[in-house]
C-alpha cells in the first residue's frame, strides 16, 4: 500500500453507501483524501509550518432533473450515506435543471505518465525543512527570502449510478520564493510530481540572481513598449485568458472574446495554447469531478481560435462530448481550463532580448484583474524584477509599472517564443508557459516606490 493511501476498494465501499440512497434517479459521488504539509519561511527562517490530512465526500443527487449537492469530511460509509440523504433533500427543494445532461458512464482513462510518488506522499516535515535550507543556501550576501515548500498527496475515488468507477493517486511537490535585498526582489518557483525532482536550490539561485540584478531601480515612463515577458508573467496572461475566454459557458452566453471568432486569427501564428491534463509534464487527476476523462483541447492553434473546454452540460447543449473540464458541483462558473500550456518556441531568453531595440523585460505580474472580459482587457502591476532593454541587451532595473492591456492584442504582436517551459501551480491548477517577445504592451503608470 502506498503511504497514506486506502486503495480503490475501500474508497468505493464508501461511495457505494452514497450511491445506494433511496429515492434518487441518479447519484454521483466522489471521495477525495488529501494529506501532506507546507513549510513556509520568511526573513529566511521557518515561521509557519503545517501538516494535516482531510477527506471530503461530495455527493450529487438527481431526482426528476432536480439536483442537490452535499459534502462532508466524514469519509465513512455512514458519512457518505448521510451526505447523500442531505443532497436528496436539497434536490427535492430545487427545480428541474434544463441543462442536466445525465451522469458519466464507464469510460477508459487516458494513458498518462507518472502522477504519484510514494516518497513524496510520505515526506516528513524535516524533508521539507531541508528543501527550504537548500533554497536558502543559494542566497547572496545581504539577501533574505520568503516562500514555501509543499508536499501533497491526494487519493480520489469517483462512482456514478451510470457505471463510472474511477480511482487515482497523485502527488505534488512545489517550491516558490521571493528573494529580497538592497531594496530589490526576485521571484522563482518550481513544481513536480516527486520531491526528488524538485530543485529548490535552483529556485533560490534564480530568484537571488534576479534580485541582485534588480537593485537601484530607475524611472520608466508609462508608454507602449516592446517587451520580453518571462514565463511567470506569461503564466498570468494565460490564466486570465483561460478564465474569461475559452469556457463553453462564457461562449454560449456571449461573454467570451472568442464569440464569432472561432476558426479565425486571434493571435500571432507563433502562439499555440492548449489545455492538457494528460500529456507529459501534467500534474493531477486524469478525470474531472463529473467522472469524464480529461482531454487535451487545442485553444489557440497557430494563432487561430481553435476550441473551447466543456463539461457535460455545455457539451450536451453544443452537441459535442465533454472534454473533461467540469468543476466540482455546484458550479455556477461552467467548465474551465486547469492545465494550460503554451507550446515552446526555439529562442533563448537572450535571443528574445536581442530582438528588442528599446523595451522592457518583466519577471512577473501581480494583482491582475479583468477590466473587460469581451476584450480580454486586464490590469495589473509588474513585480520582482522589471528591467529596461536597450540595444538588444538587458539593462538596469526600473520601478514597477501598471499595465492596462488586452491579452489577445498582446499575443497578436508576439514575434518570439522562448524554448523553455516553466511550471506554476495554484491549488489544483497548473500552467506551463515559455517566455514571449511582444511588440506592443501598454503600461499606463509607474509605481511611486
Amino acid at each position, binding site marked *: 500500500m502506498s503511504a497514506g493511501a486506502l486503495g480503490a476498494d475501500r474508497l468505493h465501499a464508501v461511495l457505494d453507501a452514497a450511491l445506494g440512497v433511496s429515492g434518487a434517479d441518479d447519484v454521483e459521488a466522489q471521495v477525495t483524501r488529501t494529506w501532506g504539509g507546507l513549510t513556509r519561511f520568511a526573513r*529566511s527562517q521557518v515561521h509557519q509550518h503545517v501538516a494535516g490530512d482531510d477527506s471530503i465526500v461530495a455527493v450529487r443527487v438527481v431526482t426528476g432533473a432536480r439536483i442537490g449537492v452535499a459534502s462532508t469530511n466524514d469519509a465513512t460509509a455512514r458519512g457518505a450515506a448521510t451526505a447523500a440523504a442531505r443532497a436528496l433533500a436539497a434536490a427535492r427543494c430545487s427545480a428541474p435543471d434544463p441543462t442536466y445532461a445525465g451522469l458519466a458512464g464507464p469510460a477508459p482513462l487516458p494513458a498518462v505518465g507518472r502522477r504519484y510518488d510514494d516518497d513524496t506522499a510520505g515526506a516528513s516535515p524535516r524533508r521539507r525543512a531541508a528543501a527550504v535550507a537548500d533554497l536558502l543556501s543559494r542566497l547572496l550576501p545581504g539577501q533574505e527570502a520568503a516562500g514555501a515548500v509543499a508536499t501533497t498527496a491526494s487519493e480520489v475515488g469517483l462512482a456514478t449510478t451510470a457505471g463510472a468507477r474511477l480511482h487515482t493517486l497523485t502527488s505534488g511537490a512545489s517550491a516558490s520564493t521571493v528573494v529580497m535585498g538592497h531594496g530589490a526582489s526576485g521571484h522563482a518557483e518550481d513544481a513536480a510530481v516527486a520531491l526528488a525532482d524538485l530543485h529548490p536550490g535552483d529556485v533560490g539561485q534564480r530568484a537571488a540572481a534576479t534580485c541582485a540584478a534588480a537593485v537601484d531601480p530607475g524611472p520608466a515612463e508609462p508608454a507602449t513598449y516592446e517587451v520580453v515577458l518571462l514565463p511567470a508573467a506569461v503564466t498570468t496572461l494565460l490564466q486570465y485568458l483561460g478564465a474569461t475566454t475559452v469556457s463553453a459557458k462564457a461562449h454560449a452566453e456571449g461573454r467570451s472574446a472568442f464569440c464569432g471568432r472561432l476558426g479565425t486569427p486571434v493571435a500571432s501564428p507563433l502562439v499555440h495554447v492548449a489545455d492538457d491534463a494528460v500529456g507529459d509534464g501534467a500534474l493531477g487527476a486524469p478525470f474531472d469531478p463529473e467522472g469524464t476523462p480529461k482531454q487535451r483541447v487545442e485553444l489557440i492553434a497557430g494563432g487561430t481560435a481553435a476550441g473551447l473546454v466543456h463539461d457535460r452540460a455545455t457539451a450536451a447543449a453544443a452537441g459535442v462530448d465533454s472534454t473533461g473540464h467540469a468543476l466540482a458541483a455546484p458550479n455556477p462558473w461552467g467548465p474551465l481550463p486547469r492545465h494550460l500550456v503554451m507550446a515552446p518556441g526555439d529562442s533563448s531568453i537572450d535571443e528574445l532580448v536581442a530582438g528588442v531595440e528599446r523595451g522592457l523585460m518583466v519577471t512577473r505580474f501581480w494583482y491582475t484583474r479583468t477590466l473587460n472580459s469581451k476584450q480580454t482587457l486586464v490590469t495589473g502591476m509588474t513585480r520582482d524584477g522589471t528591467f529596461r532593454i536597450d540595444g538588444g541587451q538587458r539593462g538596469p532595473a526600473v520601478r514597477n509599472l501598471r499595465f492596462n492591456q488586452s491579452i489577445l492584442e498582446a499575443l497578436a504582436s508576439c514575434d518570439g517564443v522562448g524554448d523553455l517551459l516553466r511550471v506554476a501551480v495554484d491549488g489544483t491548477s497548473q500552467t506551463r508557459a515559455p517566455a514571449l517577445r511582444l511588440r506592443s504592451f501598454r503600461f499606463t503608470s509607474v509605481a511611486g516606490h
Partner: protein
Amino acid sequence: MTLPAETETLARRAVEVAIAAGATYADARFVDLDEEHLAVRNGEVEGVGVSSSAGVGVRVLKHGCWGFAATGVPEPAQAEVAARLAVEVAESGQALQRSPVRLAGVEPVQDRWETALAEDPFAVPLEDKLDLLVRATRAMLGVPGASVATGGFHAWRRRSRFVSSEGTSVAQRIVHCGAGITATAVGEHEIQTRSYPNSFGGDFGAEGYELVRRLDLAGQAPRVAEEAVQLLDADPCPAQTTTLVLDGSQVSLQVHESIGHAIELDRVLGSEAAYAGTSFLTPHDRGRLRYGSPLLNVVADATTPGALGSFGYDDEGVAATCTPIVTGGVFRDFLSSRETAAAIGLDRSGATMRAQSWAHLPLIRMTNVSLLPGQAGSLDELLDGVDHGIYLETNRSWSIDDRRVDFQFGTEWGREIRHGRLGRVLRNGTYGGRTTSFWGSLDALGGPGLWKAWGLPNCGKGQPGQGSRVAHGAVPARFRDVQVGAG
C-alpha cells in the same frame, strides 16, 4: 449554543499531549463548519449545495518555533496524533530559526459567545430562499437587453472550541449569511454587469435571514437590469484629473485594499512577502505617519453588532476589541497577533487572528476595519459645490501593488457631476492613485445616517490560501484631484 462538552475534552487532551511531548505552549481548536450555497441563473436553479466539515487543529511552540497539525477525524486518538505531529513539525524548523517566537500576554478566560440572530438562515426553508432568487432573476431577465441574470444566497455556521495551555477555554457559535443579484448585458464588444447590493456576491453580515429580507432583491431587480442595459450605450468615462465622489460600497473596498491590508502587522514584518506582499508601513510609523486628511478616522472594531468581521474571541483566545487605526488622519496602530504584538514591543494583541477552518493556521485578518462617518447628511450634500466631477459606484475590478501603495479600481456605474448634480451615465469608470496622497485628498464624508458595514466574503491570504469574511463600515466620500479614466 449546541457544542458538546466532549469537544472541550478533545481539545484539552490534544493540548496535554503536546505539552507532554515538549511543547512550551499549545492550543487546540475544534471547529465544526456548516455551509449552504444557492445559485440561480436566468430564473432556473443552478446549484443547491450544503456542506459540513469538522476537525481539530493543534498549534504548538517548541524551542520558540511554531508547529501546526490538523486532522479531519475529530476523535481522541487522531487528536493525539495531530498534537504529536505538531510538535515534530515545530522541532523540524528549529535549524532554520534565528529568533524564537515570543507571545504578548493574555488573561486566561472561560467564556462562550454567539452571533445574535433574529431568524436563523439555516432554518428558513430552501424552497423559500430559492423562490426569492428565482423571482429576482426572472424580473431581471424580463428587462429587454438583459442577457444573464444571477442570484446567490450563502450561509455559514461555525461552532468552535478553543483551549490553550495557558488556561483559556472559549466556545463560540458564529453565523454569517447574505445574498445578491447581478444582471449582465452583452454587446458586440462590450459586456456590462450591474450588481446589487454590491459586487462580490452581494452583501453579508453576522446576522440572520433578516438581512436578506431587508435587501428586497426582487424589488430592486428591474432597476439593476435596466442599468446594465443602459451601460452598453453609455459614454466611456473620460480620462481626467477631477473631483471624485464614491458610493459607500466602493469606499469600503478602498478601505479594504489601501488601509486594511496595509495595517496587517504580519505583512509589515515580512511574513507574507512571498504571497500577499508586504506594506509601505513600518513599526516606526505609529503615531507619526500622516495617512490622510484630518477627516480620516478609521477603527478596527470586531465588536460591531451584525458586521461580518465580528466575533467574541479570535483564534488565539483573545477577546474582541476596537483598535483606533487612523485618528484625524494620523496612523495610530496595526492589526496584530500575540506574536507580532510582542515583536514590536506591544503588551497586548489586537485580537485579529482567524483561521478559515480547523485545518488552517490562524493569521492576522481584518475584522471590521471601518471608516468613521463625517458630516454630510446626503449624497446631494457631497455633490453640492462640485462644478465638474465624476461619481462612481460598485466595484468591478481592483488592483494594488504588493506594498499597498499604487492602486487602480474599476467600477460598474458612473455618472458625470455637473454643477452639483448627477448627469449623464458613464461606463468603464476607473480611478487610480497612491494610498496616502489619495486619502490626503479626502475632503468630505457622508454622515452617520449614510454609514453602513459592507460585508466582504472573500478576502484571501496565506499559504495554503485561506478565505476570510470581513467587513468595512463606510460612507460615500469625496476626493479632490483624482486621476480618473476609462478602463
